[in-house]
């Protein structure tokens, strides 16, 4: 019925880095809601994809969604004046991003966690280290707007 044997010889260290684990623990409760989180050494991005079938490259589409979510996060960080309608805000925002992309560098993106939900949605959390990547969130002065929030 059951054959089983094993010997422990060495303690392998294939797992996640301890630092990443600790920093992920700190942002775990907010990443799904905010779709983005930053810790001391990492950026965490959150992307979702609804799976019609697996022919498409899920991770690619989820990554694209994660960047969209990052844009939304960056957009919401700006203290937009009330007199601007949403369309104008979006125009201003994306015109700025055309010249000043959020990422200075964008490399070594890693899938940290993939979760399939019962409703055919797959959520993927991506992680970037801050050593090799920098995200420049625009502020009000970058956009030439007064900041009435602070």
């Amino acid at each position, binding site marked *: *019925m059951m054959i089983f044997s094993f010997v422990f*010889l060495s303690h392998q260290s294939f797992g996640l880095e301890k630092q990443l684990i600790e920093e992920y623990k700190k942002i775990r409760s907010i990443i799904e809601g905010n779709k983005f989180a930053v810790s001391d050494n990492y950026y965490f991005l959150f992307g979702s994809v609804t799976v019609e079938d697996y022919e498409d490259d899920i991770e690619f589409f989820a990554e694209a969604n994660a960047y969209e979510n990052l844009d939304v996060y960056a957009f919401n960080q700006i203290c937009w004046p009330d007199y601007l309608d949403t369309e104008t805000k979006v125009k201003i925002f994306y015109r700025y991003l055309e010249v000043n992309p959020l990422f200075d560098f964008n490399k070594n993106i890693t899938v940290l966690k993939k979760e399939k939900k019962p409703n055919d949605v797959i959520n993927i959390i991506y992680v970037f280290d801050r050593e090799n990547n920098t995200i420049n969130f625009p502020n009000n002065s970058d956009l030439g707007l007064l900041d009435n929030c602070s």
Partner: protein
Amino acid sequence: MTIGKNLIIISTISFLFLTINIAYAVETKEEFATEKPLIKLHKKSGQSKSMAEDFVRKNKKWKIGLNTRAEEKGGDFFVSIGTSSIAFDNSFANFGDARQDAFDIAFLQSKKQFIKFMGQRISTNIVNERKQGSYAQPPEPGTSEMENLMDEISSFEEGKKLRTLINLKLDQALRDAGYEDPSTPEAAEEAEKIIKTKEFSKSIEAAAEHRIAGFQTYKVFEISDGNKGDISVIGLWSNKLNLLADALSTGGDIPSGTPKKALMEQIPTQNTDEDILRWAFSYGARMTTDENGNPSILSFGHASPLFDDVDEWTDACDQAIVQAESFIAIFANEIASYKENLNKAQNTKIFEDNSNLNNLKSETKPIKNYYKKLETSGYINTAGSEYLDSIEIQHPASEQALECIAAVGWNTSLRTAGENIKNTTKSAEKITLDDDQESDDINEEEEEDEDGTSYSGESDEADDDF
């Protein structure tokens, strides 16, 4: 004197010859010695197949392929084996996925092997039937006899229906080859040739694939040296399993006389080491019956937590449940899709157009695509599956190889009432095997490896009531 001289010369030459020859032989041996690694047997990796084959041949005394068995004991059955390596990328966060993917590939391989065996059997049966003259008077196309046959076909037993449709195709092929009367001995001889052609074999295999309903995992073997591993699946198909699949897809029959255990009692406990190990090697979905005799599906899902932490374990177990539920839908829909094609079939084209498995690449992505299509195909509504239990284990591969394994059950009584109910009481009679039940062998072997933990294990056997 001359004779003495000659003797000395002959002796010297003989001695020199022997010495050179020995030296050559030694050298040759050394040459072979350097070749040795080419034929070196792997000590551990890739051994799960041998374990599975030994189990089939030695423990069960079965053959790989068709096994004949008396009708009253359940009839003939097929055994096949599929193997896949575990594509382990040194990230224990995906360890559960890697093992599951390996199982999926190995299971597909065993299904493909079954299709070949079943195809061979169909071909043999057709050739024999024709030689014996049991297909001597085929109806002419377009006649009322043919119409009557087509009406009658729907009531045929699945195997007979399939053979009849192939025979009709064969008749047409014979006519195309100039044999107007397909019942002559010459035509029977030509039929044997046609059946062996590549094109016709494909057609037969497409038809054979449509008999796969009921094929399921009997036992799983897994072995690893800590870095590389492989999984072998013993798959099994019998007429009874096929009929049980029929009952499962067409309605919730209540076969009397075979009350079984509650699904909860059919999964391993968490009380003994042995049962915990059974969890570790339980994969995919399989048919069974519940305590009321309802055709049921038991399914196991595997998922690894990102790291050892309560929240991550919770997420991993949720994932394992979602996976187990999806396997129920896949398993049930695969059965139902083939059954539906068989019911609809008026010729063999439907089999050729709808054969999937034989052409499916034994790779993770195509298998996942195929599963996805099945899961959403909606042949059967498997809503209402019942979560049974889950277990959190540390796999022997490494301290970091953590897995949550969840068991989910579904039975036909959970379907919406009012669907077509089919009685398979007869087929559900208790079946006993010729050979005695083998004792539960426990072969313990401890292997040391330079890289890490080595392990080997095998799943529990599925029920022998097949």
